[in-house]
């Protein structure tokens, strides 16, 4: 009955809405009630607009009654990470510097979800400050708890997007992924999380972290649901000059037409030191499943894997230091009351407004771009990036997709990792995908003995999301992991 509506898939709910067994108002009310029941414990929401969501739901029901429903997302409550602009709603990036900022316009993904797909936007979801982090502990407001174990992190940086969906406080959510920020929390919370090919989804209206790496993508309960959301948000946007101008496939329809079998590559560098044994065993079992499906499994090598982390932390911090220069306390955002002149406003507003991790990354990024160090760090990192990308493209001459763990470890305890470098090392399996601009999806593939979700990562060829999701779906259909929900 309605008490469990909040754990159903878009696919199921869209059928009920279409059959008029359910109204968007009922569904939205159920999600709001669930949010209020659980968010005190998971702290996934920075804010929400109940009246606004109910009005969108009522409008959806009116459209449907008039025979003007806009498709499967019409009336479905979808949560947005608090780095994606929604006109008239707070946009904080979980930072004090934007604590009182209200967005004057919609991101392109927001507009597409609202106006083209008819989705009900539900909530501004907590994250690491400016999407910098792997545990959501860098939120300036409050950390997010993992719904599977409230003493553990949900992953990051899109931790609120993952926790809200896992807890039933939304039917799908959007996150952003610069080095794994969708895939890693999806793995740690037992969800499907997709980072699309760079350029497939517009970044217009996304608070910029590292512009050459950032992509917006969906969190969903199933691969089919992820395909539905991707279809709604993907496609060329003249407002983003890095947006790719090519037709967008009908992903949900495409999935059904691709039965496999596929050639799947196993990069040997992704199964070495530091990989938790339960995670390793679950991913090995997934490999065995694909073999059973008739897929050809090949060991491949990505020889520059060991350089991904360093390359990433040079490029990402360099771009961040440049992007975050706009926060100067002048036109918007926090302005220090202690400042005496213009330069002082910049330095003190930024010092008061940014948290420790953001400051660390601005310092590192400024350093690697500074005179005398640019060639040694930034330019060299961009060249190594070329080699990393070539590794993937070479591997894809022989295989359709790569299969790896998403995160080397399952969800860890809040406060467990205090050293920045130890935290950075958690991104080791996800950052190469961003450097190479490829699509990657995390899919649930088991649980630890302690009951924590485990995720595997499938990496696809550029703009081959349909193939990638078809491969993911072939595994999902034969397993029940995605049907389990946390007890909250």
């Amino acid at each position, binding site marked *: 009955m309605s008490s469990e509506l909040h754990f159903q898939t878009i696919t199921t709910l869209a059928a009920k809405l279409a059959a008029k067994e359910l109204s968007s108002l009922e569904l939205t009310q159920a999600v709001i009630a669930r949010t209020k029941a659980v968010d005190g414990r998971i702290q996934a929401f920075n804010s929400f607009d109940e009246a606004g969501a109910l009005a969108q739901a009522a409008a959806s029901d009116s459209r449907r009654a008039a025979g003007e429903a806009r498709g499967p997302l019409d009336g479905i409550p979808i949560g947005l990470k608090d780095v994606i602009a929604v006109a008239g709603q707070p946009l904080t990036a979980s930072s004090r510097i934007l604590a009182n900022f*209200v967005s004057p316009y919609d991101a392109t993904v927001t507009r597409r979800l609202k106006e083209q797909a008819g989705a009900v936007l539900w909530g501004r979801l907590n994250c690491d400050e400016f999407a910098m982090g792997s545990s959501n502990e860098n939120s300036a407001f409050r950390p997010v708890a993992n719904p599977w174990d409230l003493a553990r992190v949900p992953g990051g940086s899109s931790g609120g997007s993952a926790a809200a969906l896992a807890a039933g406080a939304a039917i799908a959510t959007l996150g952003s992924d610069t080095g794994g920020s969708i895939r890693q929390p999806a793995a740690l919370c037992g969800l499907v999380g997709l980072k699309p090919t760079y350029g497939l989804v517009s970044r217009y209206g996304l608070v910029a972290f590292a512009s*050459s790496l950032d992509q917006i993508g969906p969190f969903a309960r199933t691969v089919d649901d992820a395909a539905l959301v991707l279809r709604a948000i993907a496609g060329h946007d003249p407002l983003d000059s*890095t947006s790719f101008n090519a037709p967008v496939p009908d992903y949900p329809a495409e999935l059904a037409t691709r039965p496999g079998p596929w050639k799947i590559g196993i990069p040997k560098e992704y199964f070495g030191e530091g990989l938790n044994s339960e995670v390793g065993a679950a991913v090995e079992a997934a490999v065995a499943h694909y073999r059973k499906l008739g897929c050809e499994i090949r060991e491949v090598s990505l020889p520059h894997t060991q350089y991904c982390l360093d390359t990433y932390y040079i490029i990402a911090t360099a771009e961040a230091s440049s992007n975050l220069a706009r926060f100067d306390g002048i036109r918007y955002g926090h302005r220090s009351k202690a400042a005496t002149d213009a330069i002082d406003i910049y330095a003190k507003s930024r010092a008061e407004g940014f948290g420790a991790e953001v*400051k660390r990354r601005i310092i590192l990024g400024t*350093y690697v771009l500074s005179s005398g160090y640019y060639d040694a760090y930034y330019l060299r990192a961009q060249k190594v990036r070329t*080699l990393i990308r070539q590794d993937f493209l070479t591997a894809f001459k022989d295989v359709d997709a790569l299969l790896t763990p998403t995160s080397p470890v399952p969800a860890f305890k809040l406060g467990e990792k205090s050293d920045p470098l130890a935290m950075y090392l958690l991104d080791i399996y996800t950052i190469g995908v961003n450097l190479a*601009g490829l699509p990657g999806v995390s899919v649930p593939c088991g649980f630890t003995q302690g009951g924590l979700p485990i995720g595997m990562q499938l990496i696809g060829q550029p703009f081959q999301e349909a193939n990638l999701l078809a491969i993911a779906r072939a595994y999902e259909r034969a397993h029940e992991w995605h049907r389990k929900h946390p007890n909250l």
Partner: protein
Amino acid sequence: MNQAPELNIDYVAQLARLALTPEEKAKFSHQLGDVLHHIEQLSKVDVSGIEPTAHAFPVYNVWAEDVARPGLSVDQALRNAPAGRDNMISVPKVVE
């Protein structure tokens, strides 16, 4: 990059317009020293003849029609300004 990295935190913080406390400077210097030490291994990679990658899928010559389109109203544009009057943003005097 064959030299041990030296991060002059005072200089870099000034470039970044960040008023760090002495405690932050000491802490970040130490933590970023570890990160820079890790990054040192990039100097082992042979990058001779390799072109840099700025974007995985570079798109060149993106043009937009030079036509006016609706923008933000003055109220909307100034709504988030920390200080203002008479439809302007207030800032400290910068020219004597």
